[in-house]
């Protein structure tokens, strides 16, 4: 049996089903992210693990013990909030020691643990400051230390980086991951930011409208999305209407242009309306290498995005974005010129709606 097991969890508020048959096994030391748009049920699921919500149906077990209906203060979980939730009336050290204090641990043990935690988050100079004297990033590190001080069995992070500015968000994300690995603690991380989920997790659960869409490693989620929703939500994606022209050979017709796909469309009939999806970085110019699909196109627009140059091309009547890495010697085509782009048949995805 796995360390944390969430089995067939359903949560209803009145008639609204917020989480529908959620099933997940998390191994000890694993870092799992719940990714999805707001209202998809990811935070509710996390709050059920924390004990702030009780599932309508289903069980949660942690290290073999059923915790489904245990009060939050009887579970040994560490929770981190988007708003930091530090106690304003306590110093950094008092905040970190709070959990051990209410457990009536001996004084020397508390101060030793507090010191340990403060050095873990590198805030030695700020131990006696109040939360309002710290920056957002520092406050969130204190909140991490406070949650870890009680030796929680699971660390739960509810969009911990969303209130921070971009630079701090990236560095704190790396710091959280490093500390999690160092301590070998099991963590669940809720976010709506796909880049965050991809960079920090061992596994990602993509959720939509209360349902789990796909569970997998970041690599699997990005490269082998199983549903249209996952493909759209994670990374950027070109999508075009098409119809099946040969189910066996995998040929599809996008506004008069023939594409070949590696997706299994044998169950479909000739003439069925479908949608094809291609990630922008899967296209390249023919000059480099010819792949399964070679397509005539007209250059419509070029956008410089820094490390990436996004080129909009028109293939037949459909417009696609194509991403190519920037380098100072890049020879970009002119807008309006005719070119040929290519992509493999694996790059052409036909996904379930």
């Amino acid at each position, binding site marked *: 049996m796995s360390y944390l097991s969430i089995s067939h969890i359903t949560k209803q508020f009145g008639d609204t089903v917020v989480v529908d048959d959620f099933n997940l096994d998390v191994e000890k030391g694993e870092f799992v992210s719940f990714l999805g748009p707001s209202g998809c049920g990811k935070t509710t699921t996390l709050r059920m693990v924390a004990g702030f919500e009780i599932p309508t149906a289903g069980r949660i077990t942690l290290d073999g013990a059923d915790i489904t209906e245990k009060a939050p203060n009887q579970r040994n979980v560490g929770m981190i909030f988007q708003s930091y*939730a530090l106690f*304003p009336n306590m110093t950094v050290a008092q905040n970190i020691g709070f959990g051990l204090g209410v457990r009536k641990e001996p004084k020397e043990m508390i101060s030793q643990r507090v010191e340990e935690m403060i050095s873990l988050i590198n805030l030695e100079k700020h131990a006696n400051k109040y939360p309002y004297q710290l920056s957002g990033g520092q406050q969130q590190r204190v909140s991490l230390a406070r949650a870890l001080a009680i030796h929680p069995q699971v660390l739960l992070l509810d969009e911990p980086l969303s209130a921070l500015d971009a630079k701090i968000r990236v560095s704190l994300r790396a710091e959280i991951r490093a500390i999690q690995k160092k301590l070998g603690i099991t963590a669940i991380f809720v976010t709506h930011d796909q880049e965050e989920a991809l960079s920090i997790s061992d596994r990602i659960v993509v959720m939509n409208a209360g349902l789990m869409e796909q569970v997998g490693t970041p690599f699997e989620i990005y490269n082998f999305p199983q549903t249209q929703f996952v493909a759209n939500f994670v990374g950027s994606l070109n999508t075009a209407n098409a119809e099946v022209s040969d189910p066996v050979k995998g040929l599809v017709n996008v506004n008069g242009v023939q594409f070949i796909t590696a997706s299994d469309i044998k169950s479909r009939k000739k003439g069925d309306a479908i949608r094809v999806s291609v990630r922008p970085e899967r296209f390249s110019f023919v000059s480099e290498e010819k792949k399964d699909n070679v397509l005539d196109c007209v250059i419509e627009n070029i956008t410089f995005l820094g490390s990436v140059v996004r080129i909009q091309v028109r293939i037949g009547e459909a417009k696609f974005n194509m991403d190519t890495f920037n380098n100072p010697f890049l020879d970009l085509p002119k807008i309006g010129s005719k070119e040929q782009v290519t992509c493999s048949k694996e790059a052409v995805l036909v996904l379930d709606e």
Partner: protein
Amino acid sequence: MTTSSVSSTVVIKPPATRKRWESWLIFVVVSLYFLIPLGATFYWSLRGEKDVLGFEAYRKLFADTNFLPAFSESIVNAIATIMLSLLIVVPTAYWVTLRLPKLRPVVEFITLLPFVIPGIVLVFGIIRLYSRPPLLLTATYDSSRVLLICVYVALSFPYMFRSVDNGLRAIDVRTLTEAAQSLGANWPAILFKVIFPNLRVALLSGALLTFAIVIGELTIALYMAQHTLGPYMANLTRSKVYEPSAMAIVAFAITWAAMGIIDFVGRGSSRHAQMIDTD
């Protein structure tokens, strides 16, 4: 109190059109509005001796054997009222904020009732209700006093509830509660280690307002035959010339002293309220 400390983080620039001397003019006019009556009362209170300015009226006031007992009785009543009111209002407001936000309008309405019902109506209603078995509370002086304190508690609700409610809104009660819970805290620990300390300013301002009401209250105490400061002062006005003014100045000084204490004690935690607000 709490609201002012929270909004002080926002720097409001005066409109460019308002000149400096205009602001000063408004300030002076408003100050005069308060200071002239106060000054006149003080001046009058100093004229207790013929043709000399002095503290004769004050000496007589403090020499009156009825003054200090009435005063101390009012202070004890005020403190009892504050304690009882806090015990009722804080858990109620906390619970409404946390679990029953839909009930907030109902609770707000109930706490406003003392404003709607005139004191004279209230006191006759109470006397009628509590002067017969099974709730015979007007029989002795002490039981009437208990009843009086209970009425004051009700009178304090509008001020107390609003202060506490403002304080609760200034901190993120729900998240702080959840953070404390996940760290293993039980309800008493959450209330006494997290919620109360962060409400200090709000509790103090509610307590101050309650104190001021109870010290000065006349109607109800009078009809319930209580020897508190209000009836004492009313009686003084009827029989004496200069002492009532001296008494007014003493009461005023006490109110300011109470405000000073609250400002002093509250200064420490007003910073925390600001921080929460900027999160």
